[in-house]
């Protein structure tokens, strides 16, 4: 594998007496589709927050594209190429679907504040170009029909999709998805799986997926890392993880490994 896109070296974070993540060594290469799983409270979202700069690690280093990103403000990390979605959807409720995506394009503005005020030819041309690109993205994900609706009025599944579209608008090299399948039924999950693979293939970006839905993760991820109580207990391909005793114990409890359970029929 070439030089990894994202590298976590011995990353730890403590909140008072609680060590949420402990000595995490982890990397993702260009264009990889990787899963991060573990029981509730294992530290998965904390890991996301560390990568995106919301939290600062108390130990270790995080490198993106070879450069350390520890200590950078979240907006600079996003500008550098890491985008994310949130466990509890965080759209901008007062903005329309269209504006939720359009707001992202401030990142790629060539003009600045003065252009917005002077409103010359250049400004209008740029705004039109932005509108075009935003609409393109919405169409790609079948959201263009509700472009003028307030984002908060969308059905749940559409909101999740919109959040992903918004993240993609930042033109990231790495996309972090935090439990995107939460609250979805089987059909929606199948669609989501297809969507995630489509994104990776079309946009050529690496994706790190935190999920509880095992079939989904096993189906699309090339590699999976498992966290438990902030420590990485396993890493490997889906078949390797499926059979890993430590992983099973972490999810089902140690008793599950001791003796076979009497079935209800006995």
């Amino acid at each position, binding site marked *: 594998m070439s030089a990894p896109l994202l590298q976590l070296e011995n990353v730890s974070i403590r909140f008072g007496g609680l060590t949420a993540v402990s000595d995490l060594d982890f990397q993702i290469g260009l264009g990889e589709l990787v899963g991060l799983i573990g029981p509730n409270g294992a530290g998965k979202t904390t890991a996301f927050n560390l990568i995106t700069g919301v939290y600062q690690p108390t130990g270790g280093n995080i490198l993106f594209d070879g450069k350390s990103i520890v200590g950078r403000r979240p907006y600079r990390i996003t500008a550098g190429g890491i985008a994310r979605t949130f466990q509890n959807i*965080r759209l*901008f409720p*007062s903005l329309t679907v269209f504006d939720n995506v359009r707001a992202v394009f*401030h990142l790629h503005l060539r003009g600045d504040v003065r252009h917005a005020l002077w409103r010359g030819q250049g400004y209008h041309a740029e*705004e039109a170009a932005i509108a075009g690109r935003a609409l393109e993205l919405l169409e790609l994900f079948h959201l263009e029909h509700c472009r*003028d609706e*307030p984002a908060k009025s969308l059905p749940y599944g559409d909101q999740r999709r919109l959040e992903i579209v918004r*993240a993609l608008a930042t033109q990231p090299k790495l996309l972090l998805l935090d439990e995107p399948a939460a609250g979805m039924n089987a059909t929606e999950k199948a669609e989501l799986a297809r969507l995630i693979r489509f994104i990776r293939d079309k946009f050529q970006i690496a994706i790190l997926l935190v999920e509880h839905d095992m079939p989904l993760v096993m189906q699309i991820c090339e590699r999976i890392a498992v966290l438990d109580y902030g420590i990485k207990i396993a890493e490997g391909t889906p078949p390797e993880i499926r059979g890993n005793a430590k992983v099973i114990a972490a999810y089902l409890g140690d008793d599950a490994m001791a003796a076979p359970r009497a079935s209800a029929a006995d």
Partner: protein
Amino acid sequence: MNFRHAKTVLLGALAACLMVSLFAGRINGYWLNNFYDIGIGMIMAVSLNLINGYTGQFSLGHAGFMAVGAYTAAMITNQFGPLNFFAANGIFAGALFAGGLAAAGAGLLVGIPTLRLRGDYLAIVTLGFGEIIRVILQNMNAVGGARGLSVMHGWTNFFWTFGLAAVTIYVVASLVNSTYGRGFIAVQDDEVAAEAIGINTTKYKVTAFVVGAFFAGIAGGLYAHSKQFLTPGGFGFLQSITFVVMVILGGMGNTIGVILAAVLLTLLPEGLRLLADLEHLPGLAAKHPLGWIGGTRMIIYSLLLIVLMLTRPQGLFSFKKGRSG
């Protein structure tokens, strides 16, 4: 509301103001003063709307910025004796601009420490800044201190007032409706999400304060050259509240609503006072019961506020479901 003709509308409005100004001599002085108050109120409300309504920073010290602008502009123009038309307008424009810049500087001083603060804390601190400005002015003998400052030139006229109001509205509306400007609303809605799409929330918050303060300073300069007498007490907490009420009444983040609210609230005290005077008109018998209303206008004002919050907190003038310009 990204229309291509915004600039044309602005130029048209400026021309109209110029026309009215030239015939201003025909308008009753009492009404002229009311118009000036309305224009100044509009500038204050729209500029505050950028900070409170669009960016979500609940600022309770806006009158402090107005004070900085008022005193700065007055101190500059007071250096000059009588001037001819062109010199007077030139100096006036310069003084107003300087007042705006000084206020913008104050906005920077206020914006930066308040960055990490939320909701109630932010409100108290901005209130505190407003009071600190008031107390400093009260202790500066160079500007008259508590005794007040006389402003020599009454240069405020229709053109300057409504022309600058038009400019303020144009700037704030244009700013917010651009792609760049959607960032202000994003910061208000969800700071964490805004940072996650690359928005430097610090820069946006400080920008809102600086731009908002700049226009408040200009309004202050206009105010100084209309009333021709300034006291620090006139720029305190109660004044700031008046502007906040305008923003709330109009619907936070609703520029047109806020403009209407500014007009309404500026005329309200006058309207109530007129009702009080009705009692004394010959022909209307002493039985007219509305006279006492004038004396109780602040009570009505405050009750209005409470009732509004209980029944229609989105403001009187918001009819749209999402955000508009």
